[in-house]
């Protein structure tokens, strides 16, 4: 076992990998149709594509989670057969998932040792620590080995995941959107390090991404998938962003973005004063959030995930009790109860709508009726519900908001992510809106849906709504917001009009400086 550690640094070089003619179907659906990619040894290769384009299917076939219907994988020119993730691991192919796979209550060192397939049943920690220290000496970056993983920052966890692959001597790395949980600074540092290791021929990286900026800055080559087909590949330095995005979205007609209408001076509508709330473990999640939003204004809240943004949205939506502070709308105190949502015209588009805003097993029509089921025309006598008016309203909104569904009676969980979000949008935006609370509205959606949904939010603003937009996508905030606020450590640490700030300044405040 110590032999593993001592032989490790020079055991393997960066391999090359090609997947040829990969095909995978699920029932009648072709998730992957005859896709081939070549990743040269020591290159940093980007795999681009929208959600559902087949990127995950492709890497899952390479990793052995799925077995491809057709196609071959060759490693350093030799054909290999990968039937399970264990085989992939034996061939030195490793993957870093979007969500961390570390054990939070163990230390970094413990996480590394237990990840080994040959971890002994009784661990000689003195010996292992020596081996680990020797291993860390050879690495271009470090993490504190004795720190509990739960106390590490997202960037450090990501580094630890990568160290884990190196420790296991997996020199072909697949990274699934590795920067989605990092600050812009952390992301650039991380990618820079990986880029350096690729250049020195220590590792080969295949990175799933949809951030063009990162691909242009750090990657050597790229391949693009759309609807399960390879639609393009090329040199990441030479190709333009326009070319890449055309390959990704094809000729899909993208709805014209709603233009920003400028308002005359408007009054403050929503005011948050000293809001405090606790997380599920009873620790302070938000501590004294103060913010004022005018009618016809979008305030974007940026921040690294986990700095209290979701607790803030939950508190405003009534999903989390406030421990202190007041929400006022038009000068009146607002408590998130059913009657008040209507009286104050407060609407919301929470993140992950399937989890937060719908009942997956109820029908599309029923889900669309959540706001109106207890009022006429659906309800008479205050309690008796009629299906007819509910269905009629649902059919109208399904048509108006272009929700693709087999029938209003289909369970909403059978819809794609974009259509679930459209159905929620139809429910929340079809009336008069004074206050709109939005959280990561476009997370995981395709291009056309993103454009559509952002337009709807902009239109609500133009009609005079006060919009609070919480987003982990800085580009989204830069595109939509009139003012930017940064949340860090449970409070709002920075507020500025959009024209008076830039990506760098916001990034620094996100990191807590």
């Amino acid at each position, binding site marked *: 076992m110590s032999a593993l550690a001592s032989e490790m640094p020079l055991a393997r070089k960066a391999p090359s990998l090609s997947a040829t003619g990969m095909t995978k179907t699920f029932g009648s659906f072709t998730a992957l149709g005859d896709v081939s990619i070549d990743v040269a040894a020591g290159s940093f290769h980007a795999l681009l594509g929208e959600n559902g384009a087949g990127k995950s299917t492709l890497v899952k076939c390479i990793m052995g989670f799925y077995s491809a219907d057709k196609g071959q994988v060759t490693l350093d020119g030799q054909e290999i057969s990968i039937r399970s993730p264990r085989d992939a691991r034996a061939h030195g192919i490793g993957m870093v998932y979007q969500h961390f796979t570390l054990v939070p209550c163990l230390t970094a060192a413990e996480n590394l040792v237990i990840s080994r397939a040959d971890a002994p049943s009784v661990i000689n920690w003195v010996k292992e620590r020596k081996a680990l220290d020797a291993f860390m000496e050879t690495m271009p970056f470090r993490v504190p080995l004795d720190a509990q993983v739960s106390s590490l920052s997202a960037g450090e966890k990501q580094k630890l995941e990568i160290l884990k692959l190196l420790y296991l001597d997996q020199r072909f790395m697949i990274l699934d959107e590795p920067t989605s949980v990092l600050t812009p600074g952390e992301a650039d540092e991380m990618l820079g390090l990986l880029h350096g290791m690729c250049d020195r021929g220590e590792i080969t990286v295949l990175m799933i991404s949809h951030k063009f900026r990162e691909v242009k800055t750090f990657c050597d080559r790229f391949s693009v998938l759309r609807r399960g087909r390879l639609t393009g590949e090329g040199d990441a330095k030479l190709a333009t962003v326009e070319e890449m995005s055309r390959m990704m979205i094809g000729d899909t007609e993208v709805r014209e973005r709603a233009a920003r209408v400028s308002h005359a001076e408007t009054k403050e509508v929503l005011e948050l004063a000293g809001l405090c709330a606790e997380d599920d473990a009873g620790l302070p999640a938000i501590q004294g959030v103060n913010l004022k939003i005018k009618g016809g204004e979008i305030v974007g809240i940026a921040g690294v995930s986990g700095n209290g943004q979701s607790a803030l949205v939950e508190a405003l939506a*009534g999903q989390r009790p406030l421990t202190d502070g007041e929400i006022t709308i038009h000068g009146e105190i607002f408590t998130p109860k059913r009657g008040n949502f209507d009286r104050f015209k407060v609407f919301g588009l929470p993140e992950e709508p399937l989890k937060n805003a719908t*009942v997956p097993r109820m029908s599309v029509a029923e889900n669309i009726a959540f706001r109106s089921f207890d009022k006429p025309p659906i309800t008479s006598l205050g309690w*008796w519900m009629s299906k007819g008016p509910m269905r009629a309203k649902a059919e109208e909104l399904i048509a108006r908001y272009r929700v693709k569904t*087999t029938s209003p009676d289909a369970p909403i969980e*059978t819809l794609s992510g974009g259509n679930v979000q459209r159905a929620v949008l139809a429910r929340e935006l079809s009336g008069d809106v004074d206050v709109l609370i939005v959280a990561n509205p476009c997370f995981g959606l395709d291009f056309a849906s993103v454009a559509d949904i952002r337009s709807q939010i902009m239109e609500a603003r133009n009609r005079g709504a006060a919009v609070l937009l919480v987003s982990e996508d800085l580009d989204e905030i830069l595109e939509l917001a009139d003012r930017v606020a940064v949340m860090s450590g449970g409070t709002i640490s920075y507020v500025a009009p959009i024209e008076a700030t830039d990506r760098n300044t916001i990034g620094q405040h996100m990191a807590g400086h």
Partner: protein
Amino acid sequence: MADMTVQSLSIAQIKRRPSVGTLRLAEAIIIPVAALIVSALIFSIFLLVLDKSPITFFTLIWTGGFGSSFSFQNTLQRAAPLILTGLAFAVPARIGLTMIGGEGALVLGGLSAAAIAIPLVSAGVPAFLTLPVMAIAAMLAGGLWIGFAGWLRYYRGVNETISSLLLSYIAIATMNFFVEGILRDPASANKPSTMPIGDAYRIGAIPGTQVHWGLAAGLILAVVLHILMTRTTFGFAARVTGGNARAALAQGLPVGKLIVICTMIAGACAGLAGFYEVAAVHGQANASLVAGYGFTGILVAFLARQVPLAVIPVAILFGALNAAGGVIQRRMGMPDATVLVLQGLIFVVLLTSETFYGRIPFLQPKRVEDRT
């Protein structure tokens, strides 16, 4: 050319496909029925190993449960409490809770009914006043008991399955405590019981049958609760809460109140079953109340897919199983508990069958494939 055939074929398929609602209904019927058949097959193997004839067994179930007017009335008699305890599981299930405390609520309901009857009977209050008071006492006791488990769930985060199960044991112990203590009728020598309410206070049979009125109460409640859960704003709000409590909170629904009301309704149903056991069957409260109706009710509700109306036929089916127990014991020389083995087996197969929902290809609506 090939493409065109494929396309026209798929359009034809879409046109032939039944509606989403029909498919879901078909699924909800086919899977439990298939589970019953599979359980019967497995049980047949069990019988063959014991060198008994499965054919005789299932024939006896049929004759013992439905074969004659007498046996069918026996079945209905046993189905009556099962409808009520089935509802006691089904209603909280609609709001997302797994409440298995029906047994305790039934026992406590029976005890309360018998206890409140003692002073009323000895004071000579007429039956038409005494019986409603007994019924209300039983429903209140059961309702508060299960309602307490619901309250613990929402306001203190206590797992309702564990708490309702443990509350059942407390309820049974409480009954024993009173029946063997201060409420004991000195005349009940071998089997400690409360004072008999007397024949004048017993609820009679539905005219023309030997089945007591508990059956009618069960049927009416099943219909009323079905309407409540499917056609009213209360039921809609409860289903939203049961399907996704986070979404319910975001809609400003009073989740805590809904949970407590649903669990109180459930407890009241089981408590009412206890009332009928005392007022119509035993005439007093004693250990006979602990007959497992509460637990069989869980099985009934499961097989009925938590649909109040469907509880009725399933309860009758299980009533028949129980009714046939005696015949099987006499004719096949097998212990009474044989039927319990079959019930347990059905439960396990049924739980397994839950995993097949949404996985049987011909029962699925066509998904919209818009991976753009």
